[in-house]
């Protein structure tokens, strides 16, 4: 806030009044003030935008912004804000991107402190950046027809979302409020998916030779609706807040299954029979949740908060209605019921200004009450109950010279339900019933200073657990795998259950070097080391990141920002047949921004951003690295955004935006060096590796009075 000397000479106000008296009507002051404090405005922005290149040039640029398909588009936005000062009634009506497939409209009215409602409509299309080149008829429908002899044609998948939201709120008394909201979203389109099999002895039901197999790209057809309804009542007092409510969420899928037709006379009949099996798509499901949440201040230095919620989630869509066939004797639907309870308690104590203690405990119980049934011969569905507890405690003390030291303890416990006798554990060597993690944090922070704020923190945590046990099918028994007698050195152990040692360090510094220059420094480093009774699987993962941000005020009119960040993530995984993968991801990002005024009525600005992301997939035999098996995946993007705004008068502006983006994306997922990955029917997926697009938009912005 600006302050000024009060006791010399003429005040600015007197000067201002004198000027007004001399050159303007007396009410000019009121007009001036009214303009500064009245929110009422109606702004309409209309214009035209053009984008260079073709759809392939705009694949990444136009993923969500509506420019994938369009070379020319209408830019249309508006906003109306009104406040009735006498009643405090706000009216807001706005629309954005109205000329595109990601348009939004919102309307709301609120009598502040009394009642309010809102309604919104939105559309959003995700244009799959990759093109599908296929001969499949009905690709992206529930009945695709595969014909390897068919000619190929190119198409782009889309997923369109249309959403409607409604919200209501009413203050019944100054301390009692009710809120309700409803949101429905319709999803329509398709996404990359597929089926595949290579015949082997696991395909017992088909006369399928071990020498045949097929992979097919069959996009998943999507036509579903999600609905969410929430109603809650909030009661508050001087020292408490209680909030209780209901949250219901419902998923309904019009496409319950996909039934491919394989028109390939030369293919093995058994293989074709397998590929024509029905693919289950996501079933309808619903969840009902009741919750109570709030906080309480025992006094000015002891506060608590809590949350209790119970959720019942069910999934009972009949298999027959989904076009799925269950074996005789199985129930008509899965009859799934999962009951979850979450309880949380937090406590914050500040016995003296320099000392604070906080603690938080959270417990989550997921009870899978779904009946077991033999869906796969001797095997049933897997019970999925779990318990999870997390807690943390922090002690923080303000030291001399503005330093604050914090000591923290973190705890996490996870218990998963044991598989039963009829559970099939495929592709896993072993499981463990529970894990427990204990961690410590130390932080030193300088929290108050004119020019510099710094913090250094170190976190260490160790996760351990019960003995690993493998399941003996049909016996409802575990075979224990002890560390002392590693009997499965090439076993597969889920990383979420493995022992883990975690170390992290973070250094932050904010420095106001001068009144006009601020700098921010950050260094992050961390490593997770994993262990299990095997020499294989995930060994370790790590991350290092450092960066500098700067903001410089050149003058009242001109400001500069800049940043550079470098990050590296590593992952070492060892495979059971003797190769090790060293996966590195290195990201360099650089940004430069400027905003300023060329003249009183001309504002300009720009941002330049460069990102260089490189993923290395190094394979080795034992500890010997074998580079070159898989090429690096490299993503480089340079984006330049410029804008200029010219004020024609107090009511109207002209704004011009220019965006230029260059992208280079070398990867091997869908092809390498110009050789596409071919599906069995010659379908391929492609994206132009170099993309360059320039967008130019001009708008006329008018503010109605």
């Amino acid at each position, binding site marked *: 806030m*600006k302050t000024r000397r009060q006791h010399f000479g003429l005040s600015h106000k007197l000067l201002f009044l004198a000027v007004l008296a001399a050159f303007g009507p007396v009410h000019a002051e009121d007009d001036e003030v009214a303009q500064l404090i009245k929110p009422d405005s109606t702004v309409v922005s209309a214009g035209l935008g053009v984008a260079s290149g073709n759809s392939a040039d705009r694949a990444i640029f136009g993923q969500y912004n509506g420019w994938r398909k369009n070379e020319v588009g209408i830019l249309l936005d508006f906003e109306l804000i009104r406040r009735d000062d006498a009643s405090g009634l706000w009216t807001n009506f706005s629309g954005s991107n109205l000329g595109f497939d*990601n348009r939004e409209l919102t309307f709301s009215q609120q009598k502040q402190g009394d009642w309010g409602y809102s309604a919104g409509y939105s559309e959003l299309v995700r244009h799959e950046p990759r093109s599908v080149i296929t001969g499949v008829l009905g690709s992206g429908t529930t009945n695709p027809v595969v014909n390897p002899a068919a000619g190929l044609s190119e198409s782009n998948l889309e997923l369109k979302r249309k959403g409607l939201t409604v919200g209501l709120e009413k203050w019944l008394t100054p301390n009692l409020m009710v809120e309700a909201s409803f949101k429905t979203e319709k999803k329509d389109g398709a996404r990359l998916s597929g089926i595949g099999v*290579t015949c082997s002895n696991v395909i017992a039901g088909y006369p399928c030779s071990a020498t045949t197999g097929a992979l097919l790209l069959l996009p998943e057809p999507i036509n579903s609706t999600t609905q969410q309804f929430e109603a809650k009542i909030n009661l508050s007092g001087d020292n408490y807040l209680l909030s209780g409510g209901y949250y219901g969420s419902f998923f309904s899928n019009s496409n319950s299954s996909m039934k491919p037709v394989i028109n390939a006379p030369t293919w093995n009949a058994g293989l074709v029979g397998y590929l024509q099996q029905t693919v289950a798509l996501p079933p309808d499901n619903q969840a009902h949740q009741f919750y109570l949440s709030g906080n309480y201040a025992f006094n000015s230095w002891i506060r608590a908060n809590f949350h209790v919620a119970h959720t019942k989630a069910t999934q009972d869509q009949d298999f027959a209605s989904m076009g799925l066939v269950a074996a005789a004797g199985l129930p008509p639907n899965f009859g799934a019921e999962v009951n979850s309870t979450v309880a949380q308690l937090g406590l914050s104590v500040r016995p003296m200004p320099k000392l604070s203690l906080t603690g938080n405990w959270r417990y989550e119980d997921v009870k899978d009450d779904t009946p077991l049934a033999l869906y796969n011969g001797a095997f049933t569905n897997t019970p999925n109950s779990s318990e999870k507890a997390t807690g943390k405690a922090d002690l923080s003390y303000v030291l001399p010279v503005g330093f604050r030291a914090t000591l923290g303890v973190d705890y996490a416990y996870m218990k998963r339900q044991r598989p039963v006798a009829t559970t099939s554990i495929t592709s896993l060597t072993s499981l463990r019933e529970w894990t427990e993690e204990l961690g410590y944090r130390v932080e030193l922070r300088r929290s108050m200073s004119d020019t510099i704020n710094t913090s250094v923190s170190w976190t260490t945590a160790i996760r351990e657990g019960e003995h690993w046990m493998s399941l003996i099918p049909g016996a409802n028994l575990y075979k224990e795998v002890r560390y002392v007698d590693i009997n499965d050195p090439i076993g597969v152990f889920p990383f979420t259950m493995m022992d883990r040692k975690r170390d992290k360090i973070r250094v932050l510094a904010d420095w106001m070097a001068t009144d006009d220059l601020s700098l921010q420094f950050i260094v992050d480093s961390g490593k997770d080391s994993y262990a299990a009774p095997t020499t294989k699987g995930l060994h370790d993962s790590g991350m290092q990141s450092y960066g500098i941000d700067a903001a410089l005020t050149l003058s009242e009119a001109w400001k500069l920002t800049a940043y550079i960040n470098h990050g590296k993530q590593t992952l070492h995984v060892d495979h059971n047949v003797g190769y090790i993968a060293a996966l590195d991801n290195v990201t360099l990002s650089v940004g430069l921004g400027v905003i300023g005024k060329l003249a009183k009525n001309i504002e300009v600005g720009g941002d330049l951003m460069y990102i260089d992301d490189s993923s290395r997939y190094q394979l080795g035999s034992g500890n010997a690295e074998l580079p070159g098996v898989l090429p690096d995946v490299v993503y480089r993007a340079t984006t330049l955004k410029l804008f200029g705004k010219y004020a024609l008068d107090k009511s109207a502006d002209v704004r011009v935006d220019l965006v230029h983006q260059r992208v280079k994306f070398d990867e091997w997922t869908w092809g390498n060096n110009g050789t596409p990955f071919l599906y069995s029917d010659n379908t391929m997926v492609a994206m132009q590796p170099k993309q360059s697009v320039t967008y130019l938009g001009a708008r006329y912005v008018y503010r109605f009075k």
Partner: protein
Amino acid sequence: MKLWRRFSVLCFFLGAVAVLPSVVAAEIASPVAMKEVPKDLVLKGDAVCTRCHDEADGPDLLAIGKTRHGTLADSRTPSCTSCHGTSKDHLGYKGSDKPPKPDVTFGAKTKVAAEIRNAACQDCHKKDSNRSHWEGSVHQSNDVACSSCHKVHVAKDKVRDKLTQTETCLTCHKEQRAQINKPSHHPIVEGKMACTDCHNPHGSVGPKLMKRATVVDTCYTCHMEKRGPFVHSHQPVNEDCSNCHNPHGTTAENLLKTRAPFLCHTCHTPHGPTQPSLTKGSVTGWWNGSDITQGRACLNCHTQIHGSNNPSGASPSAQRLFR
């Protein structure tokens, strides 16, 4: 003569006594002599501040009138001193140099503890159920003040607009700044999603300030088709989406942390001598080549990786998430 003089003095004195109050009163009431009583400009009782910080001194400050705080019809709205304190030293300063600062200031250089700054806001906003878990939250315990993110003296607080919100959040969360610009990302840079679509920065019951009580429940608000429960489930999927996905952005498809098969190999290493490669494997040794590396990699066959509701026991069973 002496008597006359005494009479005159008495008359003058009485007259003075009788007339003086009315003269004084008239003088006080006179428009010429009356000092101007400052009027409120924006907020109730703001005259004590706006007599100096007026439209000429600080026009930007008056923009608070355009906000919800400036809605005078709402009796709950604050005055300047509600947030900045009574600031007696600042208001009563008689010196000729720079006056002391108000009791509570919110700028970048403030020396006022975050807790005190936040108390100014929480006095009113503690009734908001979305802020019930501020105490003990990661932002609170790291001395993030309301004013670190919010601006109240502007018509539009950019952190409350999803088009501009990320500018504020990325000021501290640098790692995410690069991630949201990777090719596989949520529509954040396009302004169709904001950080607060998933996170509640004012504190939450869930981890990582998730809006709902768990990671999966937060993701299900948009991706409810992944909820199931399915006849054949995939346990890490049920537990935490971030086991496999980085929601802020990656270069791998579908926001995967790394590409399959390597991601899958962190838990699974089946299929014998699997060797990722870009060369087509032999039919009998198909797993030793591009079929498990390219396209959707492991998901080429295990397509229903989030779970399958297929009850069919026909071989091969849907249990392995084939269909």
